[in-house]
């Protein structure tokens, strides 16, 4: 890459974001509207709001709950999805039930789980996140397992690969692009549930903080919270993309080869 193309790419990547931030900065500069404080005020409030204890007491626990619930959902979704996807009968038996559970909008899980566990501790929130995230992973795994190349499976059998390595190297790997698609859907559901699970009952956490600012009419602080949540969403999707990029490198190569052929 010549320095000029690097420069041009950088210009494209940073140009519009800089323009937008500048527009926000100057358009809000003299704002006296209580709902749209000047961006300069929001930026000035940011460190004091988040870096004096809130980061470790509110943000970190929220993120940990999200990650634990999400991890549980992915593991359970892939495991059950493989079981269901491998047998035609099991698939037919469970399909309408699973489709129904997937169609239930995950936020309504909050009141249901509140019945069982109340809604003060972390457990109920982790369970909410896990139960909301599991369906896209599960159903995509089922689809992916069903789509695994029959010839590959037969070949693996002919070569007397053990059942375990057939599952891991042929079925799981073959289904992984679909699983990744499900996991991506699940991640955005997880973030939604992380926030709204904190809005019920007296709670701490990132989502709860933002709503407390809003109720206390601490509007610049509320805006810092919105930005914080936006940054969190961005970072999570970045990490997801990196992991996916590594895990599916073989798939991209295969697809490009097929296209080129």
């Amino acid at each position, binding site marked *: 890459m010549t320095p000029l193309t690097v420069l041009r790419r950088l210009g494209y990547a940073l140009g519009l974001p800089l323009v937008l931030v500048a527009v926000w900065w100057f358009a809000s500069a003299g704002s006296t509207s209580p709902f749209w404080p000047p961006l300069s005020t929001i930026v000035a409030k940011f460190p004091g709001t988040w870096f004096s204890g809130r980061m470790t007491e509110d943000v970190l626990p929220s993120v940990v709950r999200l990650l634990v619930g999400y991890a549980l959902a992915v593991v359970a979704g892939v495991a059950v999805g493989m079981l269901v996807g491998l047998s035609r009968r099991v698939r037919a038996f469970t399909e309408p039930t699973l489709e129904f559970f997937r169609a239930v909008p995950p936020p*309504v899980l909050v009141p249901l789980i509140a019945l069982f566990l109340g809604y003060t501790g972390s457990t109920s929130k982790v369970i909410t996140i896990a139960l909301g995230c599991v369906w896209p992973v599960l159903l995509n795994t089922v689809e992916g397992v069903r789509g695994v190349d029959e010839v590959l499976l037969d070949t693996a059998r002919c070569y007397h690969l053990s059942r375990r390595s057939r599952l891991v190297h042929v079925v799981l790997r073959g289904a992984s692009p679909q699983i990744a698609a499900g996991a991506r859907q699940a991640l955005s559901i997880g973030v939604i549930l992380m*926030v709204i699970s904190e809005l019920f009952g007296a709670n701490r956490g990132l989502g709860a903080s933002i709503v407390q600012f809003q109720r206390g009419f601490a509007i610049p602080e509320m805006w810092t919270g919105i930005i914080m949540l936006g940054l969190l969403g961005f970072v999570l999707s970045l990490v997801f993309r990196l992991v996916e990029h590594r895990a599916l490198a073989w798939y991209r190569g295969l697809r490009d080869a097929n296209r080129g052929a």
Partner: protein
Amino acid sequence: MSTASIGPSRSRRLPLPGSDALLGVLGLVTVGVVGEVLPRSGLVNPHYLPPTSQILARLAQIVVDPDFWTLLGLTVRGWALGLALAMVLGVGLGLVIGSVPFLRDATSSTIEFLRPIPSVALIPLVVLLFGSRLPSALVLVVYAATWQVLVQVLYGVADVDPVARDTARSYRFSVFSTGRHVVWPTALPYVVTGFRLAAAVALILEITAELVIGVPGLGQTIGVAQSSGAVPETYALVIAVGLLGVAVNLLARAIEKRVLRWHPSVRRDAA
């Protein structure tokens, strides 16, 4: 290409027609029976999980109540309005941005940054601006659903065959007819995928807005039922919302089939 003769010669018995559907119904019945036995046997406190029969009886009562249909109408209205706005915005922006290379390069980083921002982050803002009224729900639904459509449309426009595009240019197609005859047919399957994803996301955000902000609709009613201790009613309403979700998915798939009747992916499915 004839693959029939070289395919793996499996002696897998073909299922009887309808037997899959029967198994599926059996699966649903099994879940219902488990839901009946667990609370009746005392394994689960019936105050947390009422027996299936009670939930279904309550559901039957709710369904004949005209109030339920009013609330359902409000939910569906918010969903449909938000989805329609998101489709117009997403398809319009996507076609324009996708067709102009400069715009595509200049906006991609911004789109990648804004898209993962969870729309629930906007909840406090819309509460201040609109309170618990329809516009609050609309903002959340439109923000969440538009990205799904926009990104798919961008993929779709990028997928247009360069040879077809150059051919159109050689024949001096106008901008409009290039769009109509070259770009649109390629992008359409992506648009429809975007629609299907957006329809599901829109329902999630509509219900979230009702449950969390109190925008009138079924979600708000679920919150009220739960906090007033009406347990069977809470479950019955959740089932109703789930059925609405199933209906939304089926509708989206039916539209997909219908719009893409001519498309190879659907034709292959039908064959």
